[in-house]
């Protein structure tokens, strides 16, 4: 009777566990096995090559590290620009203000759209010959500034970074707003009674209480931005040259372009380790700052 009941309980988790094992656990393990082999994805045999792939990535794959730097640059822009914008907007909305719900509705519109849609629409706005931005510049008499934004190596990466921020700031906005709304209003009132002005209340109450939220948002920003690539595929395809390549695009290129499945997995492992390392540092940092605050 007892055994039958336990078996019945297993039935509840069985579908989830089966799907999870086949489509998550198995590929997860395989990444490590493939990472140590040389395989074109078709041959029956895989050659075990140990750490050769990793050595090649570390020491003789400049495009890979260029893609890493570029993803890092986009992440840096997002961390500073996107999160500052998100915080300012949340702070502006965290009060009795008209149209508040409409603003919130609109700011989260870019995040719900697909990266393909956003990338292709912005690609059209920034198009070199007939794009709207260049036509505006021409109307303002600034046609010398007009350029083909996404095929010019000088501007392509920053354009991608800005559009990425445009698409993403809504997330930070919602999380910051939720955080701001948890700050008890009494704190502000007590400070006002004590004669504090808005600026010192902002500095002494809002900022310290929002640090944990800010760290959470920045962890999410780093993980999300480093791995972003669909938007870039839609805007530039990684070009011109390698100028907007990011790691996930390199992994895809190793797999589909050069049919080096093992090498692609090795790149994935190195990238994953770097991501975990960065989040871990940020997490430690958040623990320390929380301990200080308490």
């Amino acid at each position: 009777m007892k055994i039958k009941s336990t078996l019945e309980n297993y039935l509840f988790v069985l579908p989830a566990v089966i799907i999870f094992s086949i489509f998550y656990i198995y590929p997860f393990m395989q990444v490590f096995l493939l990472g140590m082999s040389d395989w074109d994805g078709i041959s029956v045999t895989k050659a075990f090559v140990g750490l050769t792939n990793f050595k090649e990535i570390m020491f003789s794959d400049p495009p890979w590290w260029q893609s890493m730097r570029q993803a890092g640059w986009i992440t840096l822009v997002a961390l500073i620009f996107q999160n500052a914008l998100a915080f300012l907007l949340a702070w502006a909305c965290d009060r009795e203000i008209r149209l508040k719900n409409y603003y919130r509705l609109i700011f989260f519109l870019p995040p719900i759209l697909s990266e393909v849609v956003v990338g292709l629409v912005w690609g059209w706005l920034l198009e070199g010959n007939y794009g709207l931005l260049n036509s505006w510049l021409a109307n303002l008499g600034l046609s010398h500034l007009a350029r083909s934004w996404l095929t010019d190596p000088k501007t392509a990466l920053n354009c991608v970074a800005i559009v990425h921020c445009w698409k993403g700031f809504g997330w930070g906005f919602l999380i910051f707003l939720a955080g701001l709304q948890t700050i008890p209003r009494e704190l502000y009132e007590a400070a006002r009674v004590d004669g504090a002005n808005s600026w010192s209340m902002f500095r002494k109450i809002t900022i310290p209480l929002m640090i944990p939220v800010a760290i959470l948002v920045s962890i999410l920003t780093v993980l999300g931005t480093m791995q972003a690539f669909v938007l870039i595929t839609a805007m530039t395809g990684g070009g011109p040259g390698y100028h907007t390549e990011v790691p996930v695009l390199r992994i895809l290129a190793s797999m589909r372009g050069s049919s080096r499945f093992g090498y692609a997995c090795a790149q994935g492992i190195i990238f994953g380790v770097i991501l975990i390392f960065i989040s871990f540092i940020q997490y430690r940092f958040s623990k320390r700052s929380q301990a200080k605050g308490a």
Partner: protein
Amino acid sequence: MKNPVYYKTKRITVNILIHIFLLTVAASCIFPLLWMVGSSLKTQSTIFSDMSLIPRQMHWDNYYWAWKEGGFGRYFINSIFYTTSVVIGIIIVSSLAAYAFSRLNFPGKNLFFYAFMAAMMIPIPGSFVPLYVLLNKLHLRNTQLGYILCMINVGLSTSIFLLKTFFDKMPRELEDAARIDGCSKFGIWWNVALPLAKPVLAVVVVFNALNVWNEYLLALLIFDSKHLMPLQVALMKFHGEYITQYHLLMAGLTIAALPIIIVYVLMQKYIVKGVTQGAIVG
């Protein structure tokens, strides 16, 4: 002491500045979408010359063309099919598991649960490579079933987490009453737990639906046949093949964006809830 008029003018000025700031950002969010719709109503020649947002002549036939000849009708139906199947799959599989993790006992329960939670947090950027190989071996690549199963897996961890958190807080009295009335475990899950979980199920549905509708990478890897592709992959393919047909591309993009915007406006309450709850997870 400064007089009250000073404070009043100051407050009004601050308010106006805040509104200008908010309105500017809001306009920048909406304008690209309006430009997309405007461009979709121009012709191959006017799209390059007519820089007005609302074209003088509206070419609604672009949509007819995109839907029929461009094949977007087909891709649209594919996307709808994948989205509904995956969401239904996730609801059943994840609510069964979440209910068990919350209410039932069996050896290894915590191990399984933590495995799911770890999957939510550990990024493995290269795992699509072996996944592709596996699907090939199982003859699931370039099939609808293969894509649906992969996407169910993608949404599983977060959905289990959200539902388990809800079940943990749910009062047990109703379930006890149902048990006394002779209801089986599956009966309780279906007749008691699921109906009570409606608010959190709405969050799970909306988030997974958005996720599947917008998914690109797995669809790109899994489908070779055009007639199986969902919208996102088809749009990229169209852009690559007809690079100058911007008016038709914009019509296609509008077809892909509109349902999402409508769902969003109707369900925004659940989206806000999901984002703020999801944030706590991390």
